[in-house]
């Protein structure tokens, strides 16, 4: 989304060329979807409680600014799941299983955190890698099913969301070291396994966000500059043409799902291994048989960023920003679920925002042309 915009200034700022580029229309489409989502959210707020709607909506819009550290902390996992969904999307795969991969990654990281005794400085790195491995494991199975058995990846990855969730909850509940039954949550992680903090007071923001951004940039390079990335995009554009050109479709499907799973798994690790703002505690997980929401939010992030890794950095930050705002809107009586509604509406509209965008563009152009013709006629 950003690449085209930075290239143009070389020959002077050319607005026409800029507005015609694909990246620009994806960007405006995303803005349109966001605007419609926010308007819908505002309407729901008015319906729910007209008196507080404006102050609540202000929290949603700008509330996150005062807590930028938290925004970045909560952006980290959804950036990773967003990359997991977006990366698979470029190949034409809809990785709805990011939730399961995320949960698996989180569990693997937890397991290494509690059960392995490693020296300070290495422990958290190993835990992150373990999380990646867990996610990969949960990504490869739908990939294999898709590639060799022709099973729709959407159904399999949904099933794996449930299987993973039940499995993880069961194992955690059965493990006395990890789980505290009386508090129905996991124990506090040892400090050696927590990712070093970035030192912003009052927030959990840590090195994870830096890693996530580096990974996003690396993925961008993979997609734009490598043969694998080219094959991946070609398969996404036209599967049959790619097959005909001799690209190894099956291998690429499995590889894509493994990478996507690894990304989501790292997201889970980043979320659970974060240092806590309160000394002596850590992030915890409650095994209450609910599918991780961060996986589904990843779909929103990927769509908003039009599956471009650089775009996803920004869209994840934005979604996290309004989520923080939604939590703050609780102060005037609104429930944070309002943001889930806004996100769902954003996804709904971004599914056809490109088309709508083009329609609006045509409409405006037609109006301008009409006016043009009118003035020409009057001139005659």
């Amino acid at each position, binding site marked *: 989304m950003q690449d085209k915009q930075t290239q143009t200034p070389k020959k002077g700022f050319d607005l026409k060329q800029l507005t015609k580029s694909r990246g620009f229309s994806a960007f405006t489409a995303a803005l349109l979807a966001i605007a419609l989502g926010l308007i819908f959210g505002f309407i729901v707020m008015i319906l729910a409680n007209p008196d507080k709607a404006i102050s609540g909506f202000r929290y949603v819009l700008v509330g996150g600014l005062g807590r930028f550290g938290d925004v970045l902390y909560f952006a980290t996992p959804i950036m990773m799941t967003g990359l997991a969904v977006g990366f698979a999307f470029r190949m034409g795969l809809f990785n709805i299983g990011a939730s399961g991969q995320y949960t698996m990654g989180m569990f693997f990281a937890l397991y290494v955190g509690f059960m392995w005794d490693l020296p300070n400085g290495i422990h958290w790195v190993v835990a992150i890698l373990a999380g990646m491995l867990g996610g990969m494991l949960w990504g490869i199975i739908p990939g294999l099913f898709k590639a060799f058995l*022709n*099973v729709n990846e959407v*159904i399999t990855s949904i*099933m794996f969301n449930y*299987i993973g969730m039940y499995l993880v909850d069961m194992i955690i509940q059965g493990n006395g070291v990890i789980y505290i039954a009386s508090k129905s949550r996991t124990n506090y992680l040892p400090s050696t396994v927590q990712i070093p903090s970035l030192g912003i007071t009052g927030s959990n923001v840590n090195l994870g966000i830096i890693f996530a951004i580096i990974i996003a940039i690396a993925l961008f390079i993979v997609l734009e500059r490598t043969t694998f990335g080219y094959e991946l995009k070609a398969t996404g554009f036209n599967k049959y043409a790619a097959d005909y050109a001799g690209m190894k479709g099956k291998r690429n499907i499995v590889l894509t799902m493994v990478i996507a799973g690894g990304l989501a798994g790292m997201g889970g690790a980043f979320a659970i291994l974060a240092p806590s703002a309160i000394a002596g505690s850590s992030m915890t997980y409650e095994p209450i048989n609910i599918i991780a929401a961060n996986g589904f939010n990843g779909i929103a992030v990927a769509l908003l960023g039009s599956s471009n890794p650089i775009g996803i950095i920004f869209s994840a930050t934005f979604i996290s920003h309004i989520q923080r705002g939604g939590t703050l809107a609780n102060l005037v009586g609104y429930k944070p679920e309002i943001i*889930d509604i806004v996100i769902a509406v954003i996804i709904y509209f971004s599914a*056809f925002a490109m088309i709508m965008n083009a329609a609006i563009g045509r409409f405006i152009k037609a109006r301008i042309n009409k006016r043009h013709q009118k003035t020409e006629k009057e001139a005659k």
Partner: protein
Amino acid sequence: MDTIYYLIQNMLPVAIPLLLVALGGMFSERSGVINIGLEGIMLFGAFFGALFVFTIQGAGIDAQLVLLMGMVVAALAGFVYSLLLSFAAVTMKADQTITGTSLNMLIPAAVLLFSKMFFNSDGITTNMGFFIRKMPVLGDIPVLGPMFFQKTYLTVIIGFVILIISVIIFYKTKFGLRLRACGEHPQAADSVGINVYFMRYAGVSLSGILGGIGGFFYSVGILDGNINGHSGVAGFGFLALAVMIFGQWKPIRIMFAALFFAFLRTLAYSIALIPFLNDLGINQTYYKMLPYVATMVVLAFTSKKSRAPKAEGIPYDKAKR
């Protein structure tokens, strides 16, 4: 024998939502629109059905009549909600999978928001007793009586009636034939004067109606008339899609597939009551995973020779030939 009666009595109320929702998915996909939003449609129908029951439960109307009225409300709700999908997928030619996903995400959040703001809980709790201990006359039939007409819900009978109606509509009417044509080759259908857009709207709307009813029947038959935004319908919309694929997009096969899945799930939740399985001492969670694992296994074996509608998932564009 008692265990068998018990399993069947508990299996049927579970099978009916799966059956209805899978039939809905079938109508939608055979018209050419992938409806992955069934989970959301179910919850939407269940929510409005439960809300209706909640508002009317004090009026002293017979429970079975309330059930029928709630069914109509749920069907209407599902229909309205499915219009969002048909508008995006048919009129706006948007990606059907993404649209369906957004519909799935919207409803749990909306239900939670609404329930938290107005009921101060995570869902709606009703105290209407829909359970039927024994149906008159029919319940006295030996063997079949205890299986189908005792300790059950009215939803079971309605479900099978809807199945029969669906089969007739699907195979014996002009409408059904046209609907199927639109899912296989919309261009050909269009060339003989069938309005593809209308047929696809009709297919999705039918899936909305059946999805809404299925959701309400889920809330009646499994949750005892309650609904909760957190657990929703526990992936039944997705399971129904698997049932539909397992049933190869054909109504009678879908029925058998639904019964199969319902049997697995019932088994999973009644381990403690079946002595020989309880003695194995396997963690109950394994059984809870069973329906989902079974889906994977079943799909692995059936997908190779899959008979999916040819044009499903592709927005119909008159300009493209």
